[in-house]
């Protein structure tokens, strides 16, 4: 093609250059990859998945099954980009896919030679010996289409949630009419159009609306919509729906980039997404040069590209004559028009066009069909025969065959959440009928393909939608227009062919599903369309069945000798268009996958060498770098320091629930195993509560701060569950009672001061008024007062086994208080050290309270005996929980003190090496006892002192351990209670 400047509705005169498979080509700004390549004389653009057959571009929209390119240079590539949707940019790098070494010469295309025995489902019948896995690697390399991306740096997508009165999907004739009617009626309208330009078929159909050329009418309508503050979103495809919220995706230029996702909640919804043209199956219908009639029209009107020079047209409706007329005007030679219908099928307009075309030398045949096209690598000749006697064929030289078997309405959006379709004989396709909650189809999507009908239907649907949304203004009169006449289509699905020919009558182009495959599926008992779809992969391609779905169902009906309405099509699945994963991720990418919860002292820890790790959504300090190269060493140093002098730890992630009201005591008694109502004001108690099934849910300290007010602290891991648990029973069994539940976790920072020197340091740091309470505080008692004008509670309680005080203070004073403790000589310690301290004392964390342990397992038998009839209590009486093999929490130490053992090791006896009788829940190296100590849940059959094999094959192998009491250090607890 010479470098003449093409003119089209989407083109500018400005040129650009790009590379395809390493060669440089030129195009114009506004061109797509497909249009520019066609204009440059390139017709072969890809290879099919299974047989690697050379393919050209078939369609002009996202339904294109063949021309898919890899865009960009490895490793940052985008696979399977639809060439007719990809707007070219200067210097763009494109490559064809699924071929080696080149598109022209692909080694694997030799597979076609075996297509005889590589029919549908062949892989179920072979590759059984020696084993599938042996064959899998080469088969996976052959399969797949585009190159796997090695890297991808896309911006975060822009998300916008908004409401509107009427959402119209599709801005063709019907969509524009619907939007205008609704906007005039006063509704807030949003119009979504997949293409970058509005108009749909009006872009090439020579129609006039309200006395104006269609294109002028479109501009006028868009201008009017702007004045009525309607919002028009072009380049935006409706991709899905959930609970009445519609999801539309803006992907500029057909390539992932600065995408936007609109989440639209309309009061009424009009589906005007037109209809998708489908081919007719004939032999070799996948040769480059075979193209859909509508695609050729779009390439001509949008990009000034002629589909070819010598054309043969093959269709079963009137529109072929209007199209032929336009193609001849553009300078293409239409050698023949093959119409499957007999003379009675034609309308008056088509008859006139037909005689005019015959006058210019076009061979207009009725009651004929294209049996096959021939040519190596592209169309050379078309073999045509009368339907009455298929054998009496003649062939015509041509370089392009345009085919059209009719149009299938886009019913996808209506099928969601209960939509139903019915078969429309006049269309040869399925149309939506019953629609959930008042959504409507309009225009071609409703099966009305003639322009005037589409306009009227659109305006009607728009008006009804506006009324449903409560807008009662005057929608104005429906636009009148005339264009290509009604198609007067007579369904025709495939040309006659013998069994050998059926192997090359393609239905699903991308997955090479042909008529022979449907026959093979039927022969093996796959009769239902859902079975045929799964067995042959019909409709599993990136075109989501748009090319072969209906055609396949119709030909299956023919082979089964049943009507298409009974065979039906397979169930359409979301999304309505392929959706880039970047868009689905929304704002939750990278560090924002989930929010990050920070304690009031977070910045301090980060600034002072704290190594923070996620724990649920919180970030918690594991250790401080100054104390050692890693968690293990630093943890030991920090723990030792707490035992010898003391240290401070940020405990603010502790869950805190304030329970207030006259019935607070009885309420807590109903939720906890032990009694809260007997706690004296000013004192606290270690409390355990059960899940509904009797398992221990959580443990923690409950403080009674007044006669009718408690603070229940919950472990960081179970905080969310405990809060929902409290709220559930407050709102159900205790609704209307005198008790309230409030989450106050973030209202109190918690600084734990632990160690022998803790009281002396606190006496120095806290103001004078605190001196007396500090001395008087006994174990589990607390004092409330203020510090620097803010509330402060000092609770004497210990999770480390040392003398310790929990300072519950308002977040605003937490940093100064923390800094003053540092200044007084107490250094911070992290979770690693805390774990060492608490395991040495046999205190429990979620490794023990893991939802699988009853209170009996955790030696809380007396708590249960004297405890409340709380939630979960009844189900503790089940026999299994009282069997002798039930586990018991014990301490555990290595027989050889120097040996290490870890949490997660299984415990066995020599006589039963394959059946564990218990496992180590937690284990730490204790600097104080200079050996590894741990806790374990072991069958009751083994008493303290028993020696068991500690098995850890996945890590450090086995050793011997001895069961001990669970408290390894200071069993009497006098360090804590002194």
């Amino acid at each position, binding site marked *: 093609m010479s470098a003449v400047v093409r003119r089209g509705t989407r083109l500018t005169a400005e040129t650009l250059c790009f590379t395809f498979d390493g060669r440089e080509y030129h195009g114009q700004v506004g061109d797509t990859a497909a249009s520019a390549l066609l204009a440059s004389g390139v017709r072969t653009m890809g290879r099919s998945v299974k047989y690697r057959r050379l393919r050209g571009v078939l369609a002009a929209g996202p339904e294109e099954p063949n021309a898919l390119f890899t865009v960009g240079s490895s490793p940052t590539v985008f696979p399977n980009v639809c060439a007719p949707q990809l707007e070219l940019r200067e210097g763009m790098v494109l490559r064809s896919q699924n071929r080696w070494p080149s598109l022209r010469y692909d080694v694997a295309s030799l597979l076609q030679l075996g297509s005889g025995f590589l029919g549908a489902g062949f892989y179920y019948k072979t590759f059984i010996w020696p084993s599938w896995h042996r064959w899998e690697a080469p088969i996976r390399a052959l399969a797949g289409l585009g190159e796997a991306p090695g890297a991808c740096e896309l*911006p*975060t997508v*822009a*998300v*916008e*949630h*908004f*409401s509107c009165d009427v959402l119209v999907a599709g801005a063709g004739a019907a969509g524009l009419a619907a939007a205008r009617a609704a906007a005039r009626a006063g509704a807030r309208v949003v119009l979504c159009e997949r293409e970058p330009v509005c108009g749909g078929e009006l872009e090439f159909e020579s129609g006039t609306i309200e006395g104006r050329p269609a294109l002028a009418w479109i501009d006028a309508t868009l201008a009017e919509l702007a004045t009525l503050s309607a919002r028009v979103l072009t380049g935006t495809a409706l991709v899905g729906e959930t609970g009445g919220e519609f999801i539309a995706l803006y992907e500029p230029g057909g390539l992932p980039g*600065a995408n936007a996702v609109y*989440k639209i*909640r309309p009061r009424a919804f009009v589906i005007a997404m037109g209809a998708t043209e489908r081919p007719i199956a004939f032999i070799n219908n996948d040769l480059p040069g075979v193209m859909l009639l509508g695609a050729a029209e779009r390439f001509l009107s949008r990009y000034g590209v002629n589909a070819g020079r010598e054309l043969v047209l093959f269709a079963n409706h009137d529109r072929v004559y209007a199209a032929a007329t336009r193609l001849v005007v553009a300078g293409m030679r239409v050698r023949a028009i093959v119409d499957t219908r007999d003379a009675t099928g034609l309308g008056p307009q088509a008859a006139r066009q037909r005689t005019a075309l015959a006058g210019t030398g076009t061979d207009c045949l009725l009651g004929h069909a294209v049996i096959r096209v021939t040519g190596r690598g592209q169309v050379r000749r078309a073999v045509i025969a009368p339907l009455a006697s298929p054998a009496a064929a003649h062939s015509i030289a041509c370089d392009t065959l345009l085919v059209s078997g009719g149009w299938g309405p886009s019913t996808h959006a209506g099928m969601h959440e209960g939509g139903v379709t019915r078969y429309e004989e006049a269309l040869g396709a399925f149309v939506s009928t019953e629609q959930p909650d008042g959504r409507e189809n309009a225009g071609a999507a409703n099966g009305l393909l003639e322009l005037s009908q589409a306009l009227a239907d659109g305006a009607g649907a728009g008006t009804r939608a506006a009324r449903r949304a409560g807008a009662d203004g005057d929608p104005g009169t429906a636009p009148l227009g005339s264009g290509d006449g009604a198609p007067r289509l007579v369904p025709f699905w495939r040309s006659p062919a013998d069994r050998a020919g059926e192997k090359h009558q393609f239905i699903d182009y991308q997955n090479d599903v042909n008529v022979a495959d449907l026959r093979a599926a039927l022969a093996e008992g796959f009769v239902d369309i859902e079975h045929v779809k799964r067995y042959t992969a019909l409709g599993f391609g990136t075109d989501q069945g748009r090319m072969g779905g209906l055609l396949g169902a119709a030909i299956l009906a023919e082979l089964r000798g049943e009507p298409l309405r009974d065979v039906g099509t397979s169930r359409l699945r979301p999304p309505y268009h392929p959706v880039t994963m970047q868009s689905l991720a929304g*704002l*939750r990418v990278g560090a*924002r996958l*989930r*929010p*990050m*919860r*920070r*304690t*009031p002292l*977070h910045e301090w820890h980060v600034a002072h060498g704290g190594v923070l790790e996620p724990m649920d959504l*919180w970030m918690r300090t594991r250790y401080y770098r100054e104390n050692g190269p890693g968690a293990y060493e630093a943890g030991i140093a920090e723990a030792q320091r707490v035992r010898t002098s003391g240290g401070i730890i940020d405990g603010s992630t502790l869950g805190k629930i*304030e329970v*207030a*009201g006259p019935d607070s005591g009885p309420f807590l008694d109903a939720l906890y195993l032990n009694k809260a109502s007997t706690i004296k004001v000013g004192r606290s108690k270690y409390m355990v509560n059960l899940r509904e099934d009797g398992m221990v849910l959580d443990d923690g300290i409950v403080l009674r701060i007044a006669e*009718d*007010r408690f603070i229940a602290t919950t472990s960081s891991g179970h905080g969310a569950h405990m809060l929902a648990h409290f709220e559930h029973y407050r709102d159900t069994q205790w609704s*209307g*009672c*005198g*008790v*309230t*539940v*409030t*989450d*106050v*976790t*973030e*209202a*109190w*920072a918690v600084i734990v001061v632990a160690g022998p020197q803790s009281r002396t340091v606190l006496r120095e740091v806290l103001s004078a008024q605190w001196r007396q309470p500090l001395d008087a505080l006994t174990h589990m008692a607390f004092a409330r007062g203020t510090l620097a004008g*803010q*509330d402060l509670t000092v609770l004497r309680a210990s999770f480390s086994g040392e003398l310790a005080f929990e300072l519950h203070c*308002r*977040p*605003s004073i937490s*940093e100064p208080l923390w800094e003053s403790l540092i200044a007084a000589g107490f250094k911070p310690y992290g979770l690693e050290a805390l774990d060492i301290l608490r395991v040495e004392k046999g205190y429990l964390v979620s490794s023990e309270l893991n939802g699988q342990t009853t209170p009996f397992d955790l030696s809380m038998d007396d708590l249960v005996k004297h405890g409340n009839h709380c939630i979960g209590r009844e189900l503790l009486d089940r026999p299994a929980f009282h069997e002798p093999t039930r586990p018991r929490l014990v301490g555990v130490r290595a027989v050889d003190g120097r040996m290490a053992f870890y949490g997660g090791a299984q415990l066995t006896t020599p006589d039963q090496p394959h059946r564990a009788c218990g496992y180590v829940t937690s284990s730490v190296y204790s600097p104080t006892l200079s050996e590894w100590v741990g806790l374990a849940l072991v069958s009751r059959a083994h008493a303290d002192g028993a020696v068991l094999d500690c098995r850890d094959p996945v890590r450090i192998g086995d050793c011997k351990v001895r069961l001990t009491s669970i408290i390894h250090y200071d069993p009497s607890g006098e360090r804590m209670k002194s």
Partner: protein
Amino acid sequence: MKGVEQVRHRGLGLVERQTGRVLEFVAFHFPSEGAFVVGWPAAPGAIRHDVQGLSGLLHFAPARWLAPSPCREIAALVAAAEDAATGTCIDVTGKWREFALIGTAAARVLASTLNTEIVLEGRECAAVTLFDCPCVLARVGDGYRIWVRASFAEDFVNAIESLCLPG
């Protein structure tokens, strides 16, 4: 505690307001049968504004009202309700951090995370989740007043800042 946190970008301002004491009043019954003390914002999503026109008492959850830095008059109202034994008053100072989101781009920023029109339809305030952070949202004049749970506040500010950066 963070000082006045400001995000300044064309058409958008996110300003943190220092708050003093913050209370939550929780009624024993919902829907509260007897009318509360006079002037009590009983309807769901209702706000009783204080004398400076600031949000004084917000009914953001069933039987739960938020009183951020209550003026004398609102504090008295709450105390009266507690005395009438219709519920309890909880001092939750530190639990919420209050932000003002102002400017022409404010609505669009919130639209990145939820449909503000629906959640504020027929009400002045609502309990919502913005950028995965639990909040109470109130429309005030041309902007919004947002109370974010304190442990999420830093993340909330980062989320809004990341929306303002180009690209």
